[in-house]
């Protein structure tokens, strides 16, 4: 059985371990909720994470299409981009796959060609994750900036239509 076939047969276990690691980047009190609550509407974070990771494992063991990877990474990164993570923490979970794969391959297969290929794919995935992360952050900054613009407050103020509480009366 090829290395890849071995991994495909253990796909679910791999995805499960990966998910466990990602969930453990949250405080333990939260982790159980994220893991346990199955209702996607009551637990969007756990749901997005689980869904993204499952798709990514599939992809990694078959073929890594950049656009599809981006789509799969988007939900989980989008969530992590606004949570209390540093940029490295937000995307670093991708690298967690390396030790998991190594572990499930066992020492014999570790230097195989396929294992090198997988590591390359993970690196590419990490770079895509970083792109997605930056897009999310840019979106946040754009929202911060545009919301101010959307409210015509400033225009009014320039037009002298607004009275600040600190201005004197009758001005």
């Amino acid at each position, binding site marked *: 059985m090829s290395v890849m076939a071995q991994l495909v047969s253990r796909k679910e276990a791999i995805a499960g371990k990966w998910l466990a690691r990602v969930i453990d980047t949250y405080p333990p009190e939260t982790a*159980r909720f994220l893991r346990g609550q*199955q209702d*996607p*509407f*009551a637990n969007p974070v756990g*749901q997005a994470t689980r869904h993204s990771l499952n798709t990514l494992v599939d992809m990694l063991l078959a073929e890594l299409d950049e656009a599809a990877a981006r789509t799969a990474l988007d939900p989980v990164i989008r969530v992590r981009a606004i949570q209390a993570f540093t940029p490295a923490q937000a995307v670093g979970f991708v690298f967690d796959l390396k030790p998991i794969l190594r572990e499930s391959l066992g020492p014999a297969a570790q230097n195989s060609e396929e294992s090198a290929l997988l590591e390359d794919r993970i690196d590419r995935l990490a770079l895509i994750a970083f792109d997605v992360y930056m897009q999310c952050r840019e979106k946040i900054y754009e929202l911060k900036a545009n919301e101010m613009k959307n409210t015509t407050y400033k225009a009014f103020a320039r037009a002298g239509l607004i009275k600040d509480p600190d201005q004197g009366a009758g001005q």
Partner: protein
Amino acid sequence: MNKFYLSSLLAVFVLALIAWVGGPSAPWLFGIVLPYLAVILFVYGVARRVMGWSRSAVPFAIPTTGGQQRSMPWIKQNKIDNPSTHLGVFIRMALEILTFRSLFRNTRMKMTHEGRFSYNLEIFLWLGAIAFHYAFLTTLVRHMRFFLEPVPLCIQAIEAVDSFFRFEISYDAIQFGLPGVYISGIVLLAAVVYLFLRRLFIAKVRYISLAQDYFPLFLIMGIAFTGILMRYFTKVDIAAIKELTMSLVTFKALSFKVPQGIGPLFYVHLAFVSTLLIYFPFSKLMHMGGVFLSPTRNLAANTREVRHVNPWNYPVKVHTYEAYENEFRDKMVEAGLPVDKMPEESAEEEKE
């Protein structure tokens, strides 16, 4: 965090030990003084707490509305979750208190990401709570047989329903007719153990738990455990115990004479119960009384229909229309907005 439940557990053990040793050597203290003291403190403490709550004002009617309001006749109102009448409030409160309705909301159907419906484990919190409270209540009522002579029929009836089977073992070695097994006692112990394990193993619940959450659980566990021990395993002298309990209710116990033959286990049981009574008014166990006073549940959601009066409502500084117009009058006139006083009038007034 472990120190919270370990310390509570330790406290309960120490208590048991003291009663085990102390009970038989100073029966008047553990059999008479302690229970009297406990009841006095319980009644005083609960009354004080409830009166304390009642003394505080209810300035606003803030019911949580959990269903369609009463508006037009052709829109179906949810008369229980958004009650606009006293009857509705009564039903809402009754369901809340008797069936833990809000807690049950947790357990509604959930949809999994495959689009299937499933029930969540949260139903166990509701189940555990219901089992615990009703088992406790039944046990309590059942115990009335110790305080009433003759035992009223209704209590006998409850006992009959509660005890689901009887069997008799008549080996040579152990020969006793096991009395009917009370479901309530077993359920009580099981539920309280479940509630404890839940606190211990669900991370988020462990995170919010305090020593005062564990202590009463251990205490009740101890009460149920000693009760079950006495009833089914180490037989105690029921007649002597009933003599004691009857003397407590009839105040004959004030002679400080305790019947002979009451085993130490009973003193442990009694000490646990007394401690629970003493602890009750100072603890979260007061939720029993507090739930009746919760303004988000016990008020009618007819706040636009009937004016709720705030006893301490006081006048506040407001920005009057007059002050507003004074500030903006010229601009208002210029913009063609009606004003109460034309600029000339107000200028004259200012001169005066």
